[in-house]
């Protein structure tokens, strides 16, 4: 293609994008003359250039559009019809430009339909009075003569000249970063003369060269590592630094403000408004946030799709909104910000929220889940079904978003670039989608590890921490049947040996190695590797098409020593691990004050058999250790079974008489520890670890049983650990009791889970407290209201309707609750949650299963209460 023509196409396309945005802005703000002047100037330039290049179709179209816009400039109010018509014209111009780019000439065809419409409208809008003269113009006007009569609606050259001079070339003022549509454009218009146009191809080539340079640098560094005392050391270091800077610089040239991906959105929203009969305000925040253009290209479509979804499904019609007591105009807010090596993009609407019931019904009909499974799921989990393949809740297929592709496609796109997507919805308040996307895909920092004799790279972004595990250390890998878990601080992480996942495992012991604690979305898990080397900036190269199906890898790379290694895809590992043993990190939900109740109420349960064939279960977190001991080591002392365990005598307790202590072979035990004391429960067989919702449906009939629950589709007895502890040490609870006050202090226990109420009540009673337990914050407040004595409140944090934070705030406002000590109980122990708890007035904050910590906190608070 002729250079001139190519330049024209590029420039015109850019101008048209501006026109698109500006026209929509103008329609909303018709009084702003600078906008229409700007648009007018752009269209006029297009027209002029078309004439020069001999493009009659484009010229005629631009001319007719310009004539109509002239009317607006003259002060005729912009009608929606007129703007629609001009936008349609611009679309046609874009089509022609497209054809022009490919065929190097204007396509055949006419545009009379549009031109007639435009001319008619221009004539209809012709104001009786002459156009108001601009207030001032710069320079002298040379009278210009046109060698033909004016076309209908055409301005005289003088008028045009005046319009030109009156139009500020720069936008009149740099708008503050207001959350208004159109704020996007300001930056690009500003730096016209300080930037040059470089083709994307050139940049790509530059990037490839830099990638190669990085590889060569890595190679040299590798050689340098082997020769400690080399004179190359210093220049090598300098080369390394310069390369790093160069890499950064080139990366920067690839960075584009996300606003570029948003440019088309105001126009889309406007068209949607017309099509759907809705009124929608589009707010954009953080349009200047930059990210790699490759990533930008990949998220354009998903973003557009999400926006369409919000407009189509999310927002209600004006009537519905009025009926719901909301402003008639719906709002969609797009925002973007940087967070670590990620860019976070949020699409939020203030519509009706996701319809959980419909999602449920749909999940059922699509066979994604059974009724029983759905019943166990929380709102947040049900909402996640919208990401399931082929899922779309719109009952009628509309032209807007119901095209058989849905959020699953969006999620796939986001997955592919290593991003995550999350949804939060509050009925009647709105839905927000949050995307977290890496800033760049080309060069990433990776941890080089070894598994099964080969090296692999794990993207650093997914790595949370490294843990060294061996038999005697604090972090041990424990195994329950085939499920391996790592007890890491207050969490239990599923772990898997990389070599086994990859099928390259040699028979070896499992208990040692490095654990790469990895996070993917809300899942945290451990990848066990044989060795960890170092981190390296690696250039991601796509997998061969013959190997791309392997979910464990997301690419390969050439290391400094020239060898090729595979890059592990943490998503693939997460999938391979399955969801059964995956702990959900809930801190994200706790961090967000506006978080919709996204708390998963699943509990990890240890399933075992003892006595009967019916499985029994105990919350895994209560169990300190699982042991298998040699039955011959069991001693009988004073009629009780004991074993020497870690230098102490540990009593063994049977669940009931039907469980016999073995005399030979291996005896499985569940060890419970409290401070320095340990006891073990004798069981026949440890079956599995499952994660399930714990609903005790039938209260326990026999001693030691809390009741029965359905676990993994099977009726399972849940044992009451509190019952067995005193069997081992009669004073297990009593020794604490002795330390508390003479008067039994009254504890109000608030927890929505009957299980925890049942579990904690006996523990607290045994510790010498009077316990009243209630199932909700509302009941708790009613209890306090009722004038009953309450000395200390223990409240769960995650509860439906009103959570622990809100309860505490409510108590603080209550005349009887101002001074009341409150202890927060939660499975979420993050710094943010603790800080939040402190703000609302928690006196203490205890992890949910930390019985010892709870008793200590109670003791402290009750003594404090007495002193006060």
């Amino acid at each position, binding site marked *: 293609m002729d250079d001139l023509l190519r330049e024209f196409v590029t420039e015109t396309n850019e101008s048209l994008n501006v026109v698109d945005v500006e026209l929509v802005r103008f329609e909303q703000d018709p009084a702003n003359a600078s906008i229409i002047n700007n648009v007018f100037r752009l269209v006029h330039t297009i027209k002029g250039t078309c004439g020069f290049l001999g493009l009659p179709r484009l010229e005629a179209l631009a001319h007719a559009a310009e004539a109509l816009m002239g009317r607006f400039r003259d002060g005729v109010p912009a009608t929606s019809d007129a703007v629609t018509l001009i936008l349609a014209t611009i679309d046609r111009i874009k089509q022609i430009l497209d054809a022009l780019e490919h065929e190097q000439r204007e396509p055949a065809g006419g545009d009379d339909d549009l031109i007639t419409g435009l001319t008619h409208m221009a004539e209809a809008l012709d104001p009786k009075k002459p156009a108001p003269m601009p207030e001032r113009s710069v320079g002298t006007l040379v009278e210009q003569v046109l060698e033909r009569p004016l076309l209908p609606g055409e301005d005289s050259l003088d008028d045009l000249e005046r319009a030109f001079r009156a139009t500020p070339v720069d936008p009149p003022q740099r708008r503050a970063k207001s959350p208004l549509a159109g704020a996007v454009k300001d930056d690009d218009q500003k730096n016209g003369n300080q930037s040059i146009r470089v083709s994307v191809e050139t940049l790509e080539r530059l990037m490839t060269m830099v990638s*190669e340079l990085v*590889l060569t640098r890595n190679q040299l560094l590798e050689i340098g590592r082997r020769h400690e005392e080399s004179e190359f050391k210093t220049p090598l270091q300098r080369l390394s630094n310069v390369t790093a800077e160069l890499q950064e610089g080139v990366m920067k040239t690839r960075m584009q403000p996300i606003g570029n991906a948003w440019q088309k959105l105001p126009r889309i929203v406007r068209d949607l408004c017309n099509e759907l009969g809705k009124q929608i305000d589009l707010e954009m925040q953080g349009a200047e946030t930059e990210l790699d253009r490759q990533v930008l290209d990949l998220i354009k479509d998903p973003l557009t799709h999400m926006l369409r979804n919000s407009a189509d499904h999310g927002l209600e019609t004006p009537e519905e909104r009025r009926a719901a007591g909301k402003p008639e105009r719906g709002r969609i807010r797009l925002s973007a910000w940087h967070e670590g090596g990620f860019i976070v993009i949020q699409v939020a609407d203030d519509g009706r929220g996701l319809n959980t019931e419909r999602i449920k019904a749909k999940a059922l009909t699509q066979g994604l889940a059974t009724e029983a499974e759905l019943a166990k799921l929380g709102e947040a989990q049900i909402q996640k079904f919208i990401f399931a393949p082929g899922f779309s809740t719109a009952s009628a297929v509309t032209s807007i978003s119901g095209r058989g592709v849905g959020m699953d496609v969006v999620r796939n796109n986001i997955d592919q670039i290593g991003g995550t997507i999350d949804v939060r919805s509050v009925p009647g308040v709105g839905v927000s989608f949050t995307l977290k996307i890496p800033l760049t895909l080309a060069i990433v920092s990776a941890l080089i590890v070894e598994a*099964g004799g*080969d090296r692999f790279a794990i993207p650093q972004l997914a790595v949370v921490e490294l843990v060294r595990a061996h038999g005697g250390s604090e972090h041990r890998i424990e195994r329950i049947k085939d499920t391996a878990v790592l007890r890491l601080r207050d969490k239990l992480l599923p772990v898997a040996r990389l070599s086994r996942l*990859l*099928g*390259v495992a040699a028979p070896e012991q499992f208990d040692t190695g490095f654990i790469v604690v990895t996070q993917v979305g809300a899942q945290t898990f451990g990848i066990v590797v044989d060795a960890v080397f170092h981190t390296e900036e690696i250039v991601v*190269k796509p997998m*061969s*098409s*013959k*190997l791309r*199906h*392997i979910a*464990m*890898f997301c690419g*390969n790379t*050439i290391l400094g020593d*020239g*060898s*090729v*290694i*595979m890059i592990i895809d943490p998503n693939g590992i997460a999938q391979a691990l399955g969801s059964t043993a995956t702990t959900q990190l809930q801190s994200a939900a706790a961090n967000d004050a506006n978080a919709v109740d996204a708390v998963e109420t699943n509990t990890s349960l240890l399933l075992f058999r003892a006595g009967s064939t019916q499985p029994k279960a105990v919350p895994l977190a209560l169990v300190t250790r699982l042991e298998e001991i040699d039955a011959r080591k069991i001693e009988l002392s004073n009629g009780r079974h004991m074993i020497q365990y870690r230098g102490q005598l540990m009593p063994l307790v049977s669940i009931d008489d039907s469980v016999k202590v073995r005399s030979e072979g291996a005896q499985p035990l569940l060890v419970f520890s409290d401070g320095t004391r340990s006891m073990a429960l004798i069981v026949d067989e440890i079956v599995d670890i499952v994660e399930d919702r714990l609903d005790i449906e039938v209260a326990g009939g026999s001693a030691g049983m809390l009741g029965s629950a359905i676990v993994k589709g099977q009726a399972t007895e849940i044992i009451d650990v509190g019952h067995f502890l005193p069997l081992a040490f009669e004073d297990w609870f009593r020794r604490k009791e002795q330390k508390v006050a003479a008067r039994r202090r009254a504890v109000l226990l608030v927890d929505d889970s009957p299980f925890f109420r049942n579990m904690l009540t006996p523990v607290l009673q045994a510790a010498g407290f009077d316990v009243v337990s209630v199932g909700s914050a509302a009941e708790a407040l009613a209890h306090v209201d009722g004038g009953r004595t309450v000395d200390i409140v223990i409240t769960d944090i995650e509860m439906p309707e009103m959570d622990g934070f809100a309860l505490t705030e409510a108590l603080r406002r209550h005349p009887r609750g101002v001074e009341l000590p409150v202890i927060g109980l939660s499975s979420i122990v993050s710094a943010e949650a603790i800080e939040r708890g402190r703000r609302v007035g928690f006196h203490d904050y205890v992890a949910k299963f930390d019985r010892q910590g709870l008793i200590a906190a109670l003791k402290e608070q009750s003594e404090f209460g007495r002193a006060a």
Partner: protein
Amino acid sequence: MSGETGTLHEYVTAQIGGQLIGLPILRVQDVFIPEGLTRVPLAPREIAGVLNLRGRIVTVIDMRRRLGLSAEGAAEAPLAIGVELRGESYGLLIDAIGEVLKLDPDAREPNPLNLDPRLARVSTGIHRLNEQLLMIVDVDRILDIAVDSMAA
């Protein structure tokens, strides 16, 4: 440039597992010694691994496995024939490289009916040479490694 000299076709010949094969010369990029081969876990059996050839990542095909030939007599220092398909580089592992032959396409005979199906699916015909039979293989078909074989 053309692979035909008059009406003759040019082939690069190679020995693999006792079989002489011929590849159209136009498809052959180069012949190299495969060094630093990295095996790829979970990959199809026919894929020996990947390696770095002058900054490019090359997928190396184990021709023995691909053609269902016996593992016996494998060369201690194998060679690889570099080929390309849709912008990607591949290396076909062979035992030894032979000479370039110019052959009359009319002399090419169709695959015998009883040819091992694993050979038949990549072979486009047989040339009878003085000493032995030359099997002409189709590069695209060699690289058409089906997903179903990946499960193995």
